[in-house]
């Protein structure tokens, strides 16, 4: 059986949805961060597959930038989470509700 473009697109769609569900259903800030990274990497798979299928290099160039951005985001995100952990000694997002009406 031939592996066509649609297989890659479907796989990355599934990965993306798993990432989205992870963000929506998990309450641990670090797991949410990991789910976001999963979303970004699912998109990377889409981009590389499309780029390969169309013989156009622009998609792969964007993948490099996405990887760099994901690293920067992880660094900033972990820094914020550590700063908050020092204050509250928890990373459960349900515990963060200082601002309300």
């Amino acid at each position, binding site marked *: 059986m031939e592996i066509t473009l649609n297989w890659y697109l479907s796989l990355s769609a599934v990965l993306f949805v798993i990432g*989205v569900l992870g963000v929506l259903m998990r309450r641990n*800030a670090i797991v949410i961060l990991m789910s976001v990274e999963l*979303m970004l990497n699912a998109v990377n798979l889409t981009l590389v597959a499309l780029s390969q299928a169309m013989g156009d290099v*622009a998609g792969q160039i964007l993948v490099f930038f996405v990887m760099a*951005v994901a690293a*920067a985001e992880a660094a900033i*995100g972990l820094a*914020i989470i550590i700063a908050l952990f020092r*204050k509250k000694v928890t990373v459960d997002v349900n515990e963060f509700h200082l*601002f309300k009406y």
Partner: protein
Amino acid sequence: MDLTNIYASLPADLVATFSMVLVALVALALVVWDAFRNNAPGIPWAGVVALGVAIVWELFALGDAPGTAWYGMVRTGGFAAFVNIVVLIGALLSIILSVPYLREIRHAHGEVYAIILFATVGMMLLGTANNLVAVFVGLETMSISLYILTGLVREDEGATESALKYFLLGAFSTGFFLYGIALLYGATGTMDLARMSEGLAAGENLVMFWAGVGLLLVGFLFKVSAAPFHMWTPDVYQGAPTTLTAYMSTATKAATFASLILVLYAALPPERWTMVLAVIAVLTMVVGNVLAIAQQNVKRMLAYSSIAHAGYVLVGLAAGTPAGYAGALFYLLVYSIMNIGAFGVMALLEWDGKEGQTQTLNSLAGIGPRKPLLGATMVVFMFALVGFPPLGGFWGKVAVFAPAVEAGLTWLVIVGVLASAVSAYYYLRVLYVFWMRSPEDEPEAAAVQDRVFAVPVTSAAVLIVCVVLLLYFGVRPGGILETTASFFAGPGASMALLP
């Protein structure tokens, strides 16, 4: 690919995007400066000089014909110059306001100003990007810098918490935005905005295309805090340091809306957007204005009001005509000035710097007569935000509402005008409490008001400049409106047909 003479256009590109390059280089220099001289007092002023030079440079570029630089990545010419000016002015005024404010809250790190400049570079790239790669890089440079600025006061639980909220939701929306880019790329075979519609005509991937556009819109609407993607805005604006909130709420919106205009105008087939954007505009205006009424904290109230103002800009985009886009650009300029002014006044009224998070409006009772400059300038900003003539806000609203009427969206404009009428209540209540009440009426006011710190000359100058600009926009809006309209009209008009 032919690589001969590939760097021949380098000098011309450097000149065409001089302001962006300058701000980026100065930001790098500030990082080195701060590494060797920790928190040197000259750092913010070097940033101010760079931003000032960049603004002057862009003023001369306002009349240029549209073009591209850096191999079609970045747009140059009038539109780009206007967007850059709005962003640069926002950064300039915010930095000047931040210097005494951050010193007062003991967070006058040199890095803050470097990060503001980095965010500014990201915004300039985002607002002038001609390619989805550049849009993404600009958006993320901006967002990551803003996450740091939000959590600047890291001993404070509220600030860190709002930074985490902003970060998690922002990263989440980035995922959608990026998936939208990927699907658009798959459907059209190009990342170049100008070639996108012809790529679509050649292909038959309509489903993929519309799914991509939808996801892209979600990402954009999140960043401009349009309902129903506005949830993060009040928390983040309340938790962040006030002068940085001023920066975040204005320059970010200007750059993101400019990019959205480019995508809608240059890349997508027209006509189908009207209803989607109109519905979102209605939601945004209603949610922003109605929830703002209930707020006791002025910063939170201004956050909801900034949601409402995103709704007004969306009215101009929903019209989908060149006049609508031109009006939206003008509105962004006016909105930036009046919002920076309002947040600037609030920053100067915080007793010890951090009470912006908890300070209630009632504790400011009777502050007008005691601090006449702040009270008087706040009158101008509040009336401008309501949209009273003869201030800039009035012409801003006219510039976005009139094209919508012409485009047959009268019902949308009626909602918009009603929403503005509602907004008069909460804006004018600020003035009522400032001027008509006295501290004796409010027990919580009497206790804290003696601690107001003195108004620094530089901050006063910024507020006065904002007032003068708003009066100028109100009295002579014609020239600027014609300039913004010229980006979408005339011979070089069709930006979609760039070389």
